[in-house]
């Protein structure tokens, strides 16, 4: 028996070694003199390139009286530059056969485009233009104010359960700027002036706060020359980049509330305060979330959806963030189930991971899932273009794209139990019941 086991494990080891080699993402990284960080990954399989710029600024860098500012600014970055007329950025990229978009989170603003590889230089020129001298006028600001308000309505106000994160975070944090969402408040968007936008631009949209990544059909040396050509002379920002230093004190006790929404099926939302994404405990919590809701054999799914038929959907999800964050649990009731029934079942499962060490086979399942995700995340140039700068900026090591699996492999079954006890306790959580608004 033992022999077979040894044989199996060495076989697995060989498999892993082989696999790590074949899946390695090779990349080059360096800084320009002005502080711009550059990451290049060459893959000439398909004649396309992905160019991304990650600016290390998100809603957590906002003034509490100007929430929604970073996201609003993201919209303005599509307006034009000194040498690109208003409305031409999209036309230029689409007209080249490319696609571009952006998103704003609590920690970052991420711009990306995919282009046929012969348009690489044009893409770099465009990104350098809006880093060097984006052009923002009153007309653009006024239009985007309305657009962003519509975005808020579409994503939050007109959508069942759309306000879940907003309602959760404003109770999970009292001081830290994570207490508001990147979409912000319409009222503050209306109040912001053009000068404020320009100040924001000069402070955060500077080379030393940006990471430029190119993946795909490139030649590394040519790319370096082009990057130098367009980005080298962009001046380093002169002001200090403000980062929130607020350390949110522990929740202290459970926060419990009810939100009435335009829904028929009750929802239960739990948010547990959890550590920053770059900690070992965060990795353990990621695995714990998989244990609870990854796949139909996961504990919460199996119990609430399959066996008890209390929930239509249930998931546990670590909302990873640079500063200490939240692990979300979200269940929507099946017809006829009350919120507290679902909560009781979730509580039971959480208690179970706290009280009992998980079995070896189940633990192996988690590792297999982590491994599959690790490989699959490298399946597209866009995914790689996003992962590399995120690992660089938020974890201080772009090469985690190749080694992150090792961080997971260090985690033990005991770690899972420990973090469940440490973080998934009542005093550390917000519980929201989403209930139907009364019809008049």
């Amino acid at each position, binding site marked *: 028996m033992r022999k077979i086991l040894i044989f199996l494990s060495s076989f697995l080891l060989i498999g892993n070694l082989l696999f790590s080699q*074949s*899946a390695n993402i090779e990349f080059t990284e360096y800084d320009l003199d002005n502080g711009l960080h550059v990451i290049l990954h060459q893959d000439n399989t*398909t004649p396309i390139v992905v160019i991304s710029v990650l600016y290390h600024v998100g809603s957590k860098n906002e003034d509490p009286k100007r929430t929604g500012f970073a996201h609003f600014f993201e919209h303005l970055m599509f307006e034009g530059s000194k040498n690109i007329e208003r409305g031409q950025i999209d036309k230029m990229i*689409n007209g*080249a*056969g490319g696609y571009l978009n952006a998103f704003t989170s609590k920690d970052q603003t991420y711009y990306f485009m995919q282009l046929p590889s*012969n348009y690489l230089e044009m893409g770099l020129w465009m990104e350098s233009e809006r880093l060097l001298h984006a052009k923002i006028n009153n007309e653009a600001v006024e239009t985007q104010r309305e657009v962003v308000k519509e975005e808020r309505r579409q994503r939050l106000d007109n959508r*069942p359960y759309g306000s879940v994160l907003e309602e959760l975070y404003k109770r999970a944090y009292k001081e830290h700027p994570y207490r508001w969402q990147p979409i912000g408040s319409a009222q503050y968007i209306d109040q912001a002036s053009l000068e404020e936008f320009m100040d924001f631009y000069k402070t955060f949209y500077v080379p030393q706060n940006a990471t430029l990544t190119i993946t795909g059909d490139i030649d590394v040396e040519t790319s370096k020359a082009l990057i130098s050509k367009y980005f080298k*002379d962009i001046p380093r920002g002169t002001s200090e980049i403000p980062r929130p230093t607020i350390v949110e004190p522990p929740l202290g006790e459970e926060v419990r509330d009810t939100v009435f929404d335009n829904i028929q099926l009750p929802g239960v939302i739990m948010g547990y305060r959890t550590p920053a994404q770059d900690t070992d405990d965060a990795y353990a919590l990621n695995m714990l979330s998989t244990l609870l809701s990854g796949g139909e054999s996961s504990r919460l799914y199996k119990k609430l959806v399959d066996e008890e038929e209390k929930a239509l959907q249930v998931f546990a999800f670590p909302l990873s963030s640079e500063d200490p964050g939240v692990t979300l649990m979200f269940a929507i009731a099946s017809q006829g189930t009350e919120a507290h029934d679902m909560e009781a079942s979730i509580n039971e499962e959480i208690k179970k991971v706290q009280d009992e060490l998980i079995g070896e086979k189940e633990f192996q399942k988690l590792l297999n899932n982590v491994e599959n995700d690790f490989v699959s995340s490298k399946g597209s140039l866009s995914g790689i273009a996003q992962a590399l700068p995120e690992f660089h900026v938020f974890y201080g090591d772009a090469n985690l794209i190749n080694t992150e699996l090792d961080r997971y492999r260090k985690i033990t079954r005991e770690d899972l139990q420990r973090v469940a006890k440490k973080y998934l306790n009542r005093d550390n959580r917000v519980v929201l019941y989403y209930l139907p608004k009364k019809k008049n």
Partner: protein
Amino acid sequence: MKIKYSSIFAILMFTIVSMQAQLDRSIKPAPGPAPEIKLGETQSFTLDNGLQVFVVENHKLPRVSFYVYVDNDPIYEGENVGYLEAFGDLLKTGTANRSKSEIDEAVDFMGATLSTFGSGIYGASLKKHTNNLLELMSDILLNVDFKQEELDKLRKQAISGLTLAEDNPNAIAGKIANALTYGVDHPYGEFDTKESWERVSVTDCQNFYQTYFRPNKAYLSVVGDINLEEAKKLVEQYFGEWKKGEVPSHTYDMAKAPAQRKVALVDRPTSVQSVIQMVYPIQLKQSDEDFFAAKVAVSILGGGSTGRLFSNLREDKGYTYGAYASIDADKLVGEFSASASVRNEVTDSSIVEMIKELEGMRDELVTEEELRIAKNDMIGSFIRSLESPQTISNFAINIISNDLPSDFYTNYLKRIAAVTMEDVQRAAKKFIRPDNAHLVVVGRASEIGEKLEAFGKVTYYDLNAQPYNPNKKELPEGLTADQVIANYVSAIGGENVISKVKTITQEFSGSFMGQDLNLTMKQLANKKGGDMFLMKMSAQGAVIQKIVFDGTTGKQSGMMGEKTMDAQESAELRSSATIFPELKYDDHGYTTKLISMEAIDGEDVYVVEVTSPADEVVSHYYSAETGLRLQTVEAGETPTGDTFTQKVVFSDYKEVSGIKFPHKRVTTVGPQVIDLTAKEIVVNAKLKKTEFQVE
């Protein structure tokens, strides 16, 4: 040597520096030479059971995926709609060898993906789990066991899912749009309901499996870190025993776009945005000559952030977060759609702009710049899709499934490049038809409903795509037409009072199309025959219309000429001539029927239909609160045979000799409105019979 070296270095430095100094940022860098586009290779083979297999090797990552696609004609599910979804979901809930939790456990243990649908199975995992994954897929495919308990569970989830969708304005809009575009008797238009789910049975699933789930109708695509030899061996081993069978084919009537634009409104009182969709069916296949021109046209209209809809509604007006259009080719029936979510107060303005943009595509040639951007965008999107190795096997399957020429994808880019501005306009005229669209709006009716009338006839739909009258309410139990009429009689003065009335004279003045208008009506009780009646309408001293009824015969004169009425017309007039005809419906052979309770401007009314012996119907609307008649509605016919609706609204009831008369009458016929106010109403004035003579 040394000198030489440094001088070269210096020259090099100089060129670099000068190149930098000369960087002219105003010049957009030109693209390099266009890269060669290579479509990856697909290898294929067919098993004895007819399963066609396509293999795309891609060794970048140690993953392999398997996709079984059973290519049946679309199935109309009918009464038990939902069973196809049930079939798809139940596929992975049990086999002769495994329970649902064993299947789940096996999938999750590998960290694999396994999805099952009405049209097939998809599985993907790391290469090292390939055998286990295929064993599982094969078990499902060959030994599925549809269990009642799993269906019961699924039914409960499906019903909860429907409830969830009822709260989602986009889901509502999609459902209503499909139902209207294709009709609920079409596979693309039918939808599941709580009731249909109650009927879905295990037998439905078994029958479908036996009849339709056959390898000779299926494709298997194998993509990833695998070679042809490995694939052949595995596929033969795991899918070789799948039994072929005769599969029925189905055809459906072609869905038709409406002859005139129709507005479908779904009232969602809590909405802060209106979800707008302009949709209709089209006849367009991928193999059609027009396919590429149509795609380019719709891309210019609404393909992303450079489309006209986005530029206008978002970037210019700030009405929305996004406005788009799409056109889908399909071997059965295709679809055009233009959509946006906009705040309530700009709903009608947004629709105006959308229609304008759709019309613009038809009326004028697009610009060269627009054409260039749209074509390049499509070309780029094609090239970008090649990054995923699945794309190539999808191409191979599409060619067979949609009867495309074998060089369809190799010529794809060439054919986009060949589209001209004229082609675009020709395709736009054919496929972009704002006048023949269903305009589906999900939003807050109290705020947007009336404004939508401008775009076509507005019909309210409930969440099951059933039209309804939004003003209709539940009638109080036991209420009859007779009671409603009796209430009216007592509200205006009571039978005692009104039955004693001998004459009524009413003088009205008002305006019609900017002209002053006078109306005189006189009625004289006549015991021997019908009551006598005189109506005279004049403007600027000239008589426009005069109607006289002597109790038996009527006569009409005025600008339309003179005409003595025939027996039937005269009989119709008798009731109108009668003083308070409500008291004499039985005598005159009229029947009454209480139809509904509705709301008019927030006031509850009972609707009573009064039918004459000649089957002419007039609807009377009585206030539930006051009993007074608020309006009448009747259908008429013009001399040219067109039908119209005449509505008379009564208000400003004031007492004259103990009887309440409406002192305001507003008559609406189509777009024309005649607004009349009573100058004088007199009861029991002396009137001479000679006034009512028909010469």
